[in-house]
Structure formats: structure tokens, C-alpha cells
């Protein structure tokens, strides 16, 4: 599974980085970025991040 963040939609709230710090982190310009690999082990947390993102900025495929 691959995970993407639409930077235009991201409001930098940090919810995804809270949900799954293994995959998401905040950049210096206060946006979220994907830096870790989505694995079978962390996929539930990634899904939680997708569901909790207030602007639906995260997608997976």
C-alpha cells in the first residue's frame, strides 16, 4: 500500500503524525509528509490517519 498527502489540502494539524509517527511527520514549514513505509503492521494506524485527517488530504492506493 502506498500513501500520499495532497499538500494543497494539508492544514498541518499534525493528526496523522500523532496517529502513525512511523509513516507521517511534520516538516519545518508545518506540513505533513510521508517519510516511512506503509507496512502490514502499521496499515491500521495509517488507515486511522486517513480517517481522522480533517481535510481528507491523505490517500492510499
Amino acid at each position, binding site marked *: 500500500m502506498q500513501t500520499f498527502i495532497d499538500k494543497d489540502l494539508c492544514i*498541518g*494539524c*499534525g*493528526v496523522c503524525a*500523532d496517529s502513525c509517527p512511523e509513516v507521517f511527520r*511534520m516538516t519545518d514549514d508545518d506540513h505533513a509528509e510521508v517519510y516511512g513505509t506503509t507496512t502490514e503492521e502499521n496499515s491500521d494506524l495509517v488507515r*486511522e490517519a486517513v*480517517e481522522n485527517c*480533517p*481535510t481528507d488530504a491523505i490517500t492510499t492506493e
Partner: protein
Amino acid sequence: MEKMFCFQCEQTAKGTGCTISGVCGKQPDVAHDQDVLTCEMIALAKGLHDKNKVCEECVDLLCDGLFTTITNVNFDTNRLAQSISAVKAKKDSLGDCCAIMAKIISLFGAKDKDGDEAATHGLFHGDPNTVSLRSTLLFGLRGMAAYAHHARVLGKRDPDVDAWFIKGMAALAEDHSVDEWVTLLMEFGGVNLKCMALLDAANTGAYGDPVPTQVPLTIEKGPFIVVTGHDLHDLKMLLEQSAGKGVNIYTHSEMLPAHGYPELKKFAHLKGNFGTAWQNQHKEFEDIPAPILFTTNCLMPVKSSYSDRVYTTSVVAYPEMKHIAADAAGHKDFHALIEQAIKLGGYAEDRHLAGVNGGTVVTTGFGRKTVLDNAPAIIDAVKAGAIKHFFLVGGCDGAKPGRNYYTDFVKQTPLNTIVLTLACGKYRINDLDVGTIGAFPRILDMGQCNDAYGAIQVALALAGAFNCGVNDLPLTLVLSWYEQKAVCILLTLLSLGLKNIYIGPSIPAFFSKDVLNVLVEKFDLHPISTPEEDLKAILK
């Protein structure tokens, strides 16, 4: 570039403030209108306060305007524009409105902005400690407004509470030292206790004292309606209008305690509770074959998968959602909701839902009177050593991962302890089977967030029985917060001198470093750490 600024709730972006759009889903235009409404209300209150005037119509405008700005209540700029116009008209009728707004702008207005924009921008910008203290009072007032509104629809109001809406809002337009702010906040806490007592009297007067009641989580086949929010009066009207029509009613989130009230539980078609706390509504309402009535917060941005089934009422609003307003006599016509429920038909078979921890039944109704009626048995159990400690684990629920702290905390509490709970934070624990002590379940659900009043009365009664202060009781408050009603409750607890409160999952962003230090030093307020560490410290 900052498009808005809001830091009133626990989920605020980066733990500092939402500046692009709200994590709650609020867009900058809504945030802007809320700020305009707030400044207009401050100006109205200042005008009234300076003239030593209290008028019920003005108080109602302030009360509903404050309520409408609580997180997850109103996302509709048209409705906000109506509120702004009404407040402005009232303010203009005072005569010297320009002078009042000029005073506000000179006090906290942003230097690089003009006119009213200077006031709205300056509301949350400037000296960090002043902004922090002003915001704490404002957010507390927003919380109290919800309680005053619920009491008012049941015909109850209190002149001291009414007067304090004016005094408190006017105080936001005045310069105060830190000590003066703290005094104001403590005075406000006392007034909010009065307001919660008023709502307690309104609810129990209208619907009787809650009694322990098991609430199924199964949704029976056939048409049904889900009612969420806090307004028991709306629920009662809906129960009356839907009786005998083959439509079942299910509570959701903060409406769960309704099942404990005799005058509500007597309706056979009030069947059970649907789902869990507010933050799960996107998942829980998707594909739901029933309409949903939002009586108060928390309304999340509505997904298209269920938007044709969402109804709002009272101060709740969302663009394009169906709104049911009260007529001049306060009556609401829910026939459209009931007809849609019949048309949708509900589930074809019973649907067995479960709580967060897999439980299938929850119990509510351990209100103030039930607990106090059992005080002799509780006191005996404490004296005999069967009950070693009481915890109040309650407050708001929310989406943050760290909120599993509360579940883990309760799971780890020793078997000789009682856990009182209230508000929607209870969904983290209310389906757990943690056993009983004598006749009491170890988890006692005392009700909605405003039933913190009942918990306070229980604590005061226990302190009286043991002839000690509340802080000397084997009682610890472990609170979770999300929105502004938690702020007014926290201020009430502090005003009563309660110390050693644990609060989480994070410290409010609107507490500046210095203000937090004052609260920690003066009241021993603890940010939560881990359940293990906190329990060790509490029970040492």
C-alpha cells in the same frame, strides 16, 4: 499566511492554533464570522454593563451567540450573519455603539488593522498572558451559555447567571492585572456552578431524578431515528411526536443519559443507544438507514454518504442541512424526520452493535440522587475498607490517539476503587466489565457533562460525612477535555478549591506558559502522563 485563528478546542492544529482551516472542519469564513459575532457581543455587553442594564432579550442573544461559537455547533455563515445582525441591532439601540467599539479596539485592537477588523484580529493576538486569560474566560462563558440555554428552554433562568453573561463579556473589554483575571475566573467558576445547578433542577424537575438503567446497543429492525447532542427537551418532543408511529428512537453520544430519566424512559420506543462518541460519526452514520437529529454539538462536517438524513435544530447549523426551528411557543415540528424514518425503513434485521471495548450493554442513570441515596452504604464500604479510592474519569471524548489513556487508566484501577464517569469521554470505558463492589458496579455513569454538578454534590456530601475537606477525600479527578464546556467545568472545580486534578490528553493551547504555571502552582493541576505513573502517584 494566517487565514484564521482559533485555539479553543483540544484538537487545535499543532497544539497551538488552527490558522488555515479548523481541524473541526470550520473554514476561515466561519471563523471570521464567529470572531465578529464575539466582538459584537463584547460591545453589547460592555454597553449594557456601563449603563448597569440587564435585559433578558440581550442575555438570550449573548447566550445563544456564545453557544453558537462552541466547537462543532455552527458551520453556517448565513446563520452567523443573522446572529451578528441581531446583536448589532441591539448594540446600536444603546446609542453610543461607536464609542464602545472604539474602546474595545483601543484595548485589544490590532495596530495594523482598521475598524472592526482590528477588534476581531486583536481578540486572540497580543500579549500572550492577556490573550490567554481573556480567552479562558471567553471559552468558559461559551460553555456556560450551552447550559443556560438548556435550562432556559425548560423555563428556568437565574438572575445571577443572566447578569454574569453581561459582566463576564464586558470584562473581556476591560484591562485587568493577572490577579484580577484570576479573581474573575474564580468568580465565573462559582457562577457556572449555579448555572449547572439550574440545569440540574430543570432536568430533574421536568423528567425526574435519573435511575440506574441498562441500555442496549442493539438496533432493532424497522424504522428508527438517532438523536444526538445534549438537549433533553428536543428528545422529549420527538418522543411525544413519534409515539405510536412504529418508529424507534435511539440516543447517540451525549444523549445516552436520557435513558435514566423516568419521564423519558417511560416511552417504550426509546429503545437504546446507537454507536459511540461524536468523533466516530463519519464511520457510524455512513449508510445508516435512518435520519439523525443534531440537537447540539458535536456536529462534524457532514459527509455526502448521509447528508440527506441530517437534521439540525436550535443553534446547530450546517449549510444545506435541513433545520427544524422552534415556533414562537417553543414547539418544534419533527414530522419530516419521522416520515423520513418510516420511508427509510431502518435495518431489515436487528443490528447488534458494540461499544469501544466490545461490550453490548451499557448502564447509565447513577445521577446525584441515586448516589446520595446510597451514601450510607458507600460510607460503610469506605469505612470497612471495601472502597479505597474514588476516581472521576470523565469529560469529552475526541479523536486523538492518546485518549486510550483513559481506557487503560480505568482498566488498571484496583478492584477496591469506584470510577465515577460523565460526558462522552465515558464511551472509552462504559462497556468494560470491571466488576462490582457490593451492590455497586465499579463504573458509575453520572450523566452528561453538566452532571459534573451532581459529582460535585456527591463529593461535598462525602466530605461532610467524613468531616474533612474535599481535597482530603480519597478522590481524584482525571479529566479529558475537548471543547469549551470542559473549560467552564474546570473553572468551577478550581473555584471550589479542588486540587490535584489530572487533565489531558493535552493542556489547552490557550493556557500561556505563565498561566499554566499559575494553575499548576495554585491548584496542583497535573497534565496526564501514563496510567501506570499517574495511578502510582495517586495511590501512593
